[in-house]
């Protein structure tokens, strides 16, 4: 009887191993979590397969909850032109378009995990460098808990993902470069490079009563900054600002020192 159990176990093990080694679109199916819980990039993938086609749903690290990149149709690739894709696919490619960047995900099996190379290409002439990132994902057990949720400090320089913003959360890719209006009546010319943000602000371009510069660092969904007036205007003050990035089109002052007037920036 013991021998029978041993044989059954061996056969079961063999079957499991064989199944794991099979290359097919099905091997991509399921919910996959990034093995790095502190990633600033892609946190989770949900891949649905049907026949030779696959759909990829991705989430990027955002605060306080992950950003939903949405679902895109993926292309499956076989090892050669005459091989059936459904039964032998060894790569999926999914492309996300945020409007100002394109992210191409190249997804491959790596044992019982997935290896994902993400190629981010900026299309907005912002001067930011295209960049690539590599991730490893492990399959979430049925009924398992998705990491989702808030990831402390979880935001990579230059942003993590295409896709839109989610109310109450940090935008998928923080992109603040541009001309902003403020409720202090001023115009602010903002430049973001990675996690660093600069601006020049003035009340009246011809004869400003105040004009200031700011340099801040993005951390999560806030900007911690120093600002100072400059002598284009007549007021000469300086201080600190903590700004909340409500979206790529709205900043809100959480704290101000030095008599800074503005509180809400929009564009």
């Amino acid at each position, binding site marked *: 009887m013991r021998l029978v159990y041993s044989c059954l176990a061996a056969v079961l093990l063999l079957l499991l191993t064989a199944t794991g080694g099979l290359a097919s679109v099905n091997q991509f199916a399921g919910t996959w979590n990034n093995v790095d819980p502190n990633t600033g990039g892609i946190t989770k993938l949900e891949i649905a397969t049907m026949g030779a086609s696959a759909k990829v749903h991705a989430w990027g690290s955002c605060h306080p909850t992950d950003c939903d990149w949405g679902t895109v149709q993926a*292309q*499956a*690739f*076989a*090892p*050669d*032109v*005459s*091989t*059936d*894709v459904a039964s032998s696919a*060894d*790569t999926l*490619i999914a492309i996300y378009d945020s409007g100002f960047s394109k992210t*191409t995900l*190249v997804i491959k099996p790596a044992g019982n995990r997935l290896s994902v*190379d993400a*190629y*981010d*290409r900026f299309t907005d002439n912002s001067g*930011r*460098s*295209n*960049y*690539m*990132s590599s991730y490893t994902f492990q399959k979430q057990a049925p009924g398992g808990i998705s990491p989702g949720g808030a990831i402390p400090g979880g935001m*990579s*320089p*230059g*942003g993590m993902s295409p896709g839109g913003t989610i109310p109450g959360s940090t935008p998928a890719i923080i992109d603040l470069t541009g001309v902003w209006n403020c409720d202090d009546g001023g115009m602010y010319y903002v430049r973001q*490079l*990675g*996690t660093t943000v600069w601006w020049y602000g003035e009340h009246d371009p011809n004869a400003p009563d105040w004009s200031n510069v700011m340099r801040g660092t993005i951390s999560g969904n806030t900007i911690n900054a120093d600002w100072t007036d400059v002598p284009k205007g007549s007021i000469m003050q300086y201080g600190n600002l903590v700004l909340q990035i409500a979206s790529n089109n709205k900043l809100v002052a959480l704290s101000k020192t030095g008599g800074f007037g503005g509180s809400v920036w929009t564009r």
Partner: protein
Amino acid sequence: MKNLLSLAAACLLLLMSLSTCTASLSQFAGDWNNVDTNTGGITKLSIAVSGDSANVHAWGKCHPTDCDWGTSPGVAFAPDVSSDLAGQAVALMAVYNTGFSETTLFIKPQGNRLSVQSYTRFTDNSGRSNYASSYVFQKSYSLSVVGPITLAETKPLKQFDKLEILPIRKVVEY
């Protein structure tokens, strides 16, 4: 004299190995031959680099001479968004369009070689399977001092016998 030549050769080798270790866009520049002389896929790449941009010229196996896929702009990728592309590029992407298929190349350094992942997607509803291929390329060094000799092997021409040999007619701005 013999010692001097040995020293010069050693210095040359050292310089070559140093230059291939540098992570920059310039490490992709040059003429590259597929290490598999019997490949049915891409046989040669010629990559030109200027500043932070690159152009990738590819050839595929064809008979009697290799098919010229033309030149496609290579999109360079840095390790992160704030890195300098020219100084720190770690990958190139180039896309070729035949009209009935689209081939995307992801090119990465692998020691002093290039690793190339090629993804061909058919767009003609022919029912053919999209497929992926992997190649390794080694640099072709020309010694102009002693004549037009190429260190890398010249590929023998093989019969056009694979469906993946696609003469490229149009280069896509990706």
